[in-house]
Structure formats: C-alpha cells, structure tokens
C-alpha cells in the first residue's frame, strides 16, 4: 500500500470528516482571536485594498461593532460545525477582511491578517462553486466539497509562501543569500522596536549578542537562514500529499519559530495555519494510535 502523497504531483487529500471538523474548529478559533475587541480607526488616511472601494470607518462605531462581533462568534461556531458555510464563513470572512482593510488604511501595512482572510476566502469561494453545481451543498456541504475547500486553503497558503520567496529573489536582485549578513541590523531594529513599544528591557542573548555575531560571521548566517528560503520556494511540495505537507509545514513552522526567537517577531497566524492545514497533527496522532492498536491486535 502507499501512503497519500507518494507521487510528486498535486493531489486533493481525502481527509476524513473528523479531521476537517478539527481543522474548521481550530481555524474558527484562530479567526476569533484575530478580530480585535474594538476598532479605533475613525479615518482612512491612506486607503489600501478594500479601503479604496469602501469607506469602512463605520466599523469604529463601538456599539455597532460590538453587535457585529457577537454575530461573528455565532457565525464561526456554525462554520466550525459545517453549517451553511456560504453564510457563516462568508459573514466572518467579510467582517475580518473589512477590519483588516481599515487597519491597513492607516498608512502602516501589517501582515498578520492577510493569510487568514485569504484562506477563509478560498474556503468560501470553494463552497460557492460547489453550491452553484449542487444547491443541496448550501446547507451542509458533502465530504468531497469540504475536501476541496481544505485543498483550496492549502493552495493559498502554499502560493503565499512561494510568492514571498519570489519577492525575496526579485527585490534583492537574486542576491538575498549574499545580503543575509545585513539581517544583523534588522535584528537590532526589531529588538529595539519591542523595547520602545513597552520599555521592557531586551536583555537576552538574541537581543544583545546575536546581531553582532551575525554581522561578524556572514557564512554562518547564510547557513542558518538559507533553509527558510528553500522551504518557501519548495512549499509547492506540500500539495503532493500528507507526508510532504508535514515536512514542508514543519520546515516553515521551524523557520517562523527561528524568526520568533532571533528577531522577536512573531507571525502566529501563519504558524497556526501551517499547524492546521499542512502539519495536521490530529491525523498523525490517529495514525500512530491505530498502528499501535493494529500491532497489539495482531
């Protein structure tokens, strides 16, 4: 027998219903944590994305936003249970995307919300396509429809990492690895940013000594940081099957954890998306348990 992903081509993994229930539940929880408690932005000084099209400042009304937030919670519970994703997920993705667009229309583009919104949108569009083909899918999508939605989610995650790798090669003129030792300045900068955000001293080794070590040892720096670029470029392999998704997801997660440690910079939403859709730990735990039980019964 072969495990899924034994061939080097893109495949929609036939995830079990319980796997996708866990995926949706954790993703819904992630979406819940990403929506702020209030929106302080009463203007759109530098419109961005949806901010070009819509005036989203009405979200700054605390009473209205409070109601919308309650609806968001209800919608996410319904989505996690797989009920009417066209409405439940559609509402949740619409709200968080609107908030993100307003937040990014202040002249400071952050990158913590985009991938969550895009993954949600990919799942929603997948549901829409399925519903158009079969109206019965609207209320409660079939197993195959959910599998397709999960695959689309993986595609958008993979595409984002590959794009990020392409941008590194384009923006640096192909010299990203050559330029890497100058990341030492970025380390000093990010640790300084954290200090000036809170005035809590950054006294760890990564903040006080590592930047200077990196500046003085360029090849050592390249050795540690280059695998991150390779994993981003090779993220396409995550679509081949479960094992390759585990390896790519694990590698990218390791990259984020390394960045978190050395730069004091976290991309927690990205980390969770890798854990949910690529690493998919519950499946491997189930497989391990089943393997143990099979051996015992044999």
């Amino acid at each position, binding site marked *: *027998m072969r495990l899924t992903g034994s*061939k*080097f*081509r*893109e*495949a*929609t993994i*036939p995830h079990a219903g319980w796997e996708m229930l866990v995926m949706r539940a954790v993703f819904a929880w992630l979406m819940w944590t990403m929506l702020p408690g209030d929106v*302080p932005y009463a203007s759109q000084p*530098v419109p*961005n994305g*949806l*901010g070009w099209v819509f005036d989203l400042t009405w979200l*700054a009304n605390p009473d209205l936003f409070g109601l919308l937030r309650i609806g968001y919670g209800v919608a996410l519970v319904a989505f996690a249970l797989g009920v009417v994703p066209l409405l439940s997920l559609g509402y949740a993705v619409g709200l968080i*995307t609107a908030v*993100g*667009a307003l937040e*990014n229309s*202040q002249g*400071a*583009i952050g990158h913590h*919300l*985009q*991938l969550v919104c*895009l993954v949600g*949108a990919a799942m929603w569009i997948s549901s829409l396509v399925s519903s158009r083909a079969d109206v019965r899918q609207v209320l409660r999508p079939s197993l195959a429809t959910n599998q397709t939605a999960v695959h689309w989610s993986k595609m958008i995650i*993979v*595409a*984002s990492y590959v*794009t*990020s790798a*392409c*941008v590194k090669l*384009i*923006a*640096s*003129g192909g010299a*990203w690895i050559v*330029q*890497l*030792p*100058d*990341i*030492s*300045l*970025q380390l000093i*900068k990010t640790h300084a*940013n954290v200090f*000036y*955000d*809170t*005035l809590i001293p950054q006294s760890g080794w990564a903040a006080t000594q590592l930047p*200077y070590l990196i500046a*003085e040892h360029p090849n050592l720096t390249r050795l540690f940081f280059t695998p991150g670029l390779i994993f981003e470029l090779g993220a396409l*392999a995550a*679509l081949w*099957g479960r094992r390759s998704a585990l390896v790519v997801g694990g590698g990218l997660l390791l990259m984020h954890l390394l960045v978190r440690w050395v730069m004091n910079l976290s991309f927690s939403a990205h980390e969770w998306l890798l854990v949910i859709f690529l690493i998919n730990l519950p499946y491997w735990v189930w*497989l391990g348990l089943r*393997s143990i039980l*099979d051996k015992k019964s044999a």
Partner: protein
Amino acid sequence: MRVESTPTSETEHRQQRRGWQWLPSWRMVGLVAAILVIGEQFPFSYFPMYSSFDPTADYYYLANEEGEPLASVEVVGTSTANVKKMYRERLRELVVRRGAEEDDATEQERAQIGRETLTYLRELGLRSGAAVPSEPIVLQRVVLHRSGEGEITRQERVVASN
C-alpha cells in the same frame, strides 16, 4: 510503516498530467502571478518583509522633550513599527508629488510629516484609550550602519516634536 486503507479513503483525485508532474499546476502559477501583480492591497499581500537587506537600516521611537523614551503602545496605542510605517508612507506621498524619492526628502519635509504623524498618533491614542501625554512627544530616528568589516554603528536624530 504499513498503513491499511479503504479505497475510498485513500484514493486521491490527482491531476492527470504526464511527465514533469512535480511542476506546479497552471492554477498555482496563476495564483502566485496574481498575488505578485495585485501586490500590497488588502487582503492580498506578497509578504515583502525582509525581502532584501541593506548595510543601512533605521528605526523610530517616541520620547519626551528630555529625550527619555516613551512606551509607544502605552502612549499612542500602536507599535513603533507602525509609527515608522505611518511616517514613511506619509513622507513618500509628499515627496512623490515633486517627483522625488523618500531618501531625497529634505529635513523640512521630514519635520513637517513628523509633526503630522504625531498629530495623527495623538488622535489615535485618544481613541484607543492610551495614556497620551499632554506634553510634546518627540519622534526620534535611529540609523544603523554595518561596515564591510562587520562593525555596526548607530546615529540618532530628532525628526519632529508635537
């Protein structure tokens, strides 16, 4: 490890392509191309963080008139990273009008945009429930440089006060 499976649970709906199967599908290529073309327009992003490195970098922080740093999140309700982005975006918008680039901005232009950014940050801080000081806030810029020998130097200057 051997894993038993039923045909339905293990069957994969693979794309029927011959040869070069490991290459990305056209829809994946299209997706990457679309994200690159659309760029930084929310909710799209090509995630350009740390896509290139220079031997010079800068960061900004807030201080009081005596030069003592202020905790940005506490006094204006947002991070110093955001303060820098907000300031630079506004500076870029100003200098682009005369066909220049950010690096060509004059001290007067930097001070003007610095004051405008601080005004905006005060308003944002008040709406966020931050402890905005009544005394002037100073925007400080720190420029870092790495020499060819790996030595790192640091220069600091006042951008604006408001």
